[in-house]
């Protein structure tokens, strides 16, 4: 099974799920051979309140209800919100969400994120977090708290049994820099998504991290996301692991009471 472990749904003008977009995602999956999308719904600017991430997670729930065989959900929270853990418990235990999505409100190794990572470790659910090493002044200004691979490595030292996924090797800046740090952080996974489709990128990620830590994803770069895996110099067995086997193994670790 081909699993896109980093994809999104979004809001329509009425604040509910944009069904045109979520249906178009399924259509793209049919064309490109993607069986399952693991999705979140992000608010990209401004502070993230409970009401906002609760509504975002509600849209994910709507997407799953609309396409139950094709969507799985991440629970998106702002870790510093006092209701973050309650939201995670409700979504993961009550609605069957498969993991947690974090954006760039806080570095992943900061104390404010620690309770989220503790719960995720206890339940053995993945934490997919936005990350990267932007070298351009625009992104640096927009995202002062973006977690780099070094932040991920530090968080993994503190929570060695947590299932941490650094998002989009192709969407967050200097990916070669990221690989240097992630190769020293053996419990951190990396997803292949993002609009950057540099030749050799996936091969180098596999060489640095090992085949078992590289996870296929698109983050909305659909043809590019699939194409970069097809072009990587991998055996059929290894390609299948990247495309879904590795993430299925992560899902199999789930120990939610």
């Amino acid at each position: 099974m081909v699993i896109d472990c980093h994809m999104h749904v979004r809001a329509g003008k009425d604040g509910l799920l944009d069904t045109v977009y979520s249906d178009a995602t399924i259509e793209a999956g049919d064309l490109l051979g993607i069986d399952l999308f693991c999705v979140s719904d992000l608010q990209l600017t401004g502070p993230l309140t409970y009401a906002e991430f609760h509504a975002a997670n509600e849209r994910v729930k709507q997407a799953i209800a609309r396409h139950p065989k094709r969507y799985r959900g991440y629970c998106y929270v702002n870790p510093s919100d006092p209701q973050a853990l309650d939201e995670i418990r409700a979504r993961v235990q009550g609605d069957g969400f498969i993991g947690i999505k974090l954006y760039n409100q806080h570095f992943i190794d900061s104390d404010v994120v620690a309770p989220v990572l503790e719960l995720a470790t206890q339940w053995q659910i993945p934490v997919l977090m936005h990350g990267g090493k932007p070298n351009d002044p625009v992104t640096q200004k927009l995202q002062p708290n973006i977690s780099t691979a070094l932040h991920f490595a530090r968080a993994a030292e503190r929570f060695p049994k947590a299932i941490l996924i650094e998002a989009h090797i192709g969407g967050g800046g200097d990916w070669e820099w990221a690989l240097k740090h992630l190769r020293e952080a053996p419990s951190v996974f990396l997803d292949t998504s993002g609009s950057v489709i540099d030749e050799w990128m996936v091969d180098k990620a596999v060489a640095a991290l090992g085949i078992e830590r590289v996870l296929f994803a698109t983050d909305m770069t659909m043809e590019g996301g699939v194409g970069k895996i097809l072009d990587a110099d991998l055996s059929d067995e290894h390609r299948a692991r990247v495309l879904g086997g590795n993430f299925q193994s992560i899902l199999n670790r789930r120990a939610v009471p």
Partner: protein
Amino acid sequence: MSTYKPLFGPGIVDAHAFIGNWPFRRLRNNDVAGVLAMMDKFGINVSCVASADAILYRDSHDGNRMIHEQTRGAADRFNLYATLNPAYAGWQRDLRECVDLGFKALRLYPIYHGYAIDSPECLSIVDAATEAGLPVSFTCRIEDARQRHWMDVIDNLDPERVLALAEQRPNATFILLEAILGWGRESDLWKRMHALPFYVELSRMTSVLDKSIEVMVGALGPERVLLGTGYPFKTPSPAFLKLQCLNADEETKTLIAGGNASRLFDADPV
């Protein structure tokens, strides 16, 4: 999982590829043999290549001479872009030499070479290329700025600036590479572009979700869109997947896959 199968006949032309080295990231398969191997794998008959080295050489023309020499043994498989800097000495003679050597189009990098796209020197080289029968190409970027080397440029080339230049020189033919044109179907920008001999390569747009390639084909017509991979900077399969997924008839896809580029590049320079 879908894999690319050559659906589009023997006339596939990659309108956007390079040969050579890039100082900020190691490329692989970036010589003639490597690019030919990729072409054969994907059923590409002809690749339109520019020198990657020429972008940052002070004298870009050395890069032109290099790719001319390097591709001589497989000249029927390559169309060459001539990379020149109109703010540097002697470009007029270098352009004439490129024409004599059979180069098929001009490549300009105003941001890398430090001149304004609407400057007199840029207009001069566009005029000279047009007089020589060469289309003029611009690429909006080489690499994503977020991963830029600390000595690389920051800004991308704005497609609207290229369109404005084209409007100043309506007799010139323009090729825009690496552009993201997310304009709505009714945008006036499409109408302005449609009124000119303006071609766009598709590698940074999409046939699914927002379907920007479908919008572009509808706005410009199928004869103005070009298949391009960006190889060896970029991995090639995405371009083919975009063409596969495009909601269009086979005639349109055949034009995009190579018919348009053949018409554009095979026109003999004056």
